[in-house]
């Protein structure tokens, strides 16, 4: 864990409690979304571990800001150029688009925060990432939201000029970084839902005692705790593993499964209170439902890991599993 973890956490907690209208602006002023990028490149310094703490803490408050997307886009950009103050969006593509003419025509869906971004980085397998100027006259952005109410816009490019970013990280590296950050975000939101639920069942009384006194309620709270333990261990594994070793996929699968169970139990234990707009639970659970399958679905990570396992055979699987955590 990062040596600045506690400091970063309390910084985020203070900001979340302050109720500032422009939280993202405050976060940017403090340089938090650029933690994990060298200062020489316009970043805030620190490590990826530090950034994970920031992401996890923000998510724990149910705050929806483009920290995962912007920090990853900036990280890609920072490999070749100095960063400025603008927001950059990022999107992964399944295959490289045809840009032989130096321009691109495409309809891109579910582009996070495109409406607020000045630029867009497109990452496809086996090709250099592409930079698109979203303020170019040939670009149209149509507003769409995910179930958490976060921008996942449609971007229409019509012969829009694109720039290849040659010294940038590969598609797989970008995908892995995004997946790791989303795992941390899911863990944070899951922890937030757990805390809220624990407080609720400890304080709310029915049948003459706190709900927590009902054994089935206590058992369900324990199930949430167990899921958190699992998700924390998975993230620790992924943080320490070699890049591209498959450990991030494990973190994705584990945090997604934890998100599913934790969201379900959190609502069950809150009863009708949990489904009102006023009560903060939905800020966490709607994000859990969106984020658990961001970048690639739990099912796709599982399929990929299973195929690798089948190919590696028992010895391969065993060696990989027991090599971690030393």
């Amino acid at each position, binding site marked *: 864990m990062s040596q600045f973890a506690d400091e970063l956490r309390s910084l985020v907690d203070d900001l979340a409690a302050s109720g500032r209208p422009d939280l993202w602006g405050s976060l940017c002023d403090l340089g938090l979304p650029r933690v994990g990028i060298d200062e020489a490149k316009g970043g805030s310094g620190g490590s990826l571990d530090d950034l994970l703490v920031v992401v996890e803490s923000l998510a724990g408050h149910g705050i929806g800001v483009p920290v995962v997307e912007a920090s990853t886009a900036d990280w890609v950009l920072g490999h070749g150029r100095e960063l400025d103050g603008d927001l950059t969006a990022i999107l992964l593509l399944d295959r490289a688009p045809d840009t032989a003419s130096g321009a691109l025509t495409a309809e891109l869906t579910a582009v996070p925060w495109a409406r607020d971004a000045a630029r867009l980085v497109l990452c496809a397998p086996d090709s250099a990432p592409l930079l698109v100027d979203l303020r170019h006259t040939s670009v149209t952005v149509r507003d769409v939201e995910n179930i958490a109410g976060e921008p996942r816009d449609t971007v229409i490019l019509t012969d829009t000029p694109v720039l290849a970013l040659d010294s940038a990280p590969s598609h797989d590296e970008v995908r892995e970084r995004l997946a790791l950050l989303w795992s941390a975000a899911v863990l944070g939101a899951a922890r937030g839902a757990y805390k809220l639920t*624990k407080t609720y069942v*400890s304080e709310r009384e029915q049948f003459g005692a706190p709900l*927590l006194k009902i*054994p089935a309620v*206590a*058992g369900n*709270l*324990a*199930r949430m*705790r*167990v899921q958190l*333990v*699992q998700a924390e*261990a*998975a993230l*620790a*594994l992924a943080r320490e593993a070699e890049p591209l070793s498959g*450990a991030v*996929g*494990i973190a994705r*699968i*584990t945090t997604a*499964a934890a998100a599913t169970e934790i969201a379900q139990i959190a609502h069950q234990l809150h009863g009708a209170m949990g489904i009102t707009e006023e009560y903060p639970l939905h800020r966490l659970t709607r994000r859990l439902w969106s984020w658990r399958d961001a970048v690639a679905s*739990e*099912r796709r*990570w*599982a*399929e*990929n*890991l*299973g*195929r*690798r*396992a*089948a*190919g590696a*055979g*028992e010895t391969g*699987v*065993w060696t*990989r*599993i*027991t090599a*971690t*955590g*030393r």
Partner: protein
Amino acid sequence: MDHSPGPDSCAELRAQVGELTAEWRDAGRYVPRSDSWLRSFDLEFSKELAARGLIAMTYPKEFGGAARTNVERLAVTEELLRAGAPVAAHWIGDRQIGPAVLRHGTRELQEEIVPRIASGDAVFCLGMSEPEAGSDLASVKTTAERTDGGWLVNGHKIWTTQAHHATHAYLLARTSREERKHDGLSEFVLDMDAEGVQVTPIVDLAGEHHFNEVRFENVFVPAHRVIGEVGKGWKQVVEQLSFERGGAERSLSSYPVLVELIAESARRHDDRELHALLGSLVARLAVLRRLCFEVASAMDAGQAPVQQAAALKFLGNAFEHDVIEALRRTDLCQDPAFDSTFGQALLASPAFSLRGGAAEVLLSLIARQEARS
């Protein structure tokens, strides 16, 4: 003291176990099976391990141990379980009783018992469960009353695995009646050949005999055989349970089934459903393995990670069940032979989430700790 073992020492230990199990297996001296840590009893194999320093690994050298870390021990137990090796003869003594006596026993008791566990000569069974107590360990009724030079034990234990092979029993007994039922409990080491000990087999649904009932009628236990403080046994039991719950055997009981699932997934390379299923199981196993490692590390740091061990056991047992269930997605489950990997594992499976604390008990334990925190 630096407890961290180098990765090399774990790799060496793994290789050593791999060679030994392969040699015995190839010579037909054992057949790998699910749940081997409870079901495969072979004193000769345990002594072979002892001779190589692969049991009592964490015990001090002066008591016949190898003074290694729990993390190193984890490497060895994992490889033994992976190989489905016959380890039931020493498992409970090595895992639980040796550490308990080392933590709380008198010097005399340590000198008497620990080296014999280390050599594979003392075979332990666990006298915890009782017919009327079920999972409620604190309501044990077996009593130990003071007598000249020791104690007289009377009572009735049940589900006592390998009691028919055991030379010794660990016993939880009531030494006084107190207002709180958690007070007044004490832990003892008993000789199974003492006068008044009676063992009756209980045959399980697979037709196998591992369980027993054990009755104690005025069994004399010498005074020095108390573990720790008289009447303060509860705290020790709880601590001991983190040794019992936090090990690799709580996730690997059905590992041979996972091995078949991996092979079957390789044969069916177009079956995306099966791959996804295998992938999520492998992810869970990797995380369980990580938790095991964290528990072992915590023990190396002198902690008794009660909650983490309970969470690990809860998750591990669910995994063991789900691995078996996953094989039902293939044709390998059809008409399973009684002694097939699938058949053996399935018949053993009802015990997975019962022994060492039922799933519901683990959850309530975790919930209690949460309520306090």
